[in-house]
């Protein structure tokens, strides 16, 4: 099981395209990538979840951890997601109130 992580810098934002399943095995890879971005000075991060077909609490934990990191630098972390089964996870855990969730990458970067 591989997690695809593709980063693109667009203007002031770093956009991370995630592909595959985010679970207890793969979440640490996403965590490393997000830590790396922040340590490189990318404080406005967009995580595109459109290619994600599974997400569990370890993935949510990693996203919350990244949010705390960017906030420490007055940055932002927003998500791109239109898939009902993924949105459901954010709703159940109350995270729809914590993350701005957009329908497209352009909406998330304000392009």
């Amino acid at each position, binding site marked *: *099981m591989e997690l695809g992580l593709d980063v693109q810098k667009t203007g002031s934002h770093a956009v991370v395209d995630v592909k595959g*399943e985010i*679970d*207890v*095995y793969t979440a640490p890879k996403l965590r490393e990538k997000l830590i790396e971005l922040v340590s490189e000075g990318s404080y406005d991060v967009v995580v595109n979840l459109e290619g994600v077909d*599974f997400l*569990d*609490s*370890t993935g*949510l*934990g990693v996203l*919350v951890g990244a*949010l*705390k990191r960017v906030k420490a630098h007055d940055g932002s972390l927003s998500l791109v997601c239109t898939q009902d*089964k993924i949105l459901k*996870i954010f709703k*159940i*855990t*109350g*995270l729809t109130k*914590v993350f701005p969730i957009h329908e497209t990458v352009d909406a998330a970067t304000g392009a």
Partner: protein
Amino acid sequence: MQQRARSSVALVRLEIPPRSPYVGVVRLAISSLARSAGLDEEKVDDIKIAVSEACANAVLNNEEASTDAPVTISWEDSDGSVRIEVADRGATVDSSASADVDTQGFSTRAVMSFALLKSLVDDCEFQPRDGGGMTTRLLINR
């Protein structure tokens, strides 16, 4: 599934090393069983997440205890319901004792996992095991 209907209880068991790379195979096996049992795709997805949560908790409990004892997943399909158990030999967790939110007010992973488990299946129970570890019991009504 005609042949399955003949007997009222069908038991499938899966034993994995208590490590994260094996959770994916459990998810795959359970989804396939749930689909074959005639559950609809939304229910299959819910079960997939719930079982994955239970396995993730087992694997993480295990990292603390660092045993090598397997995590056992059992699937029981009786007439009216599906029962899934995930049992580990990791740390015995007292859920009432763990913090709900971190110092900045964000929910912890454990709390989010608990919320998902409670919401995605019809009943969910956690129980310490004799000899150490936890059992998570999931009930799905048809």
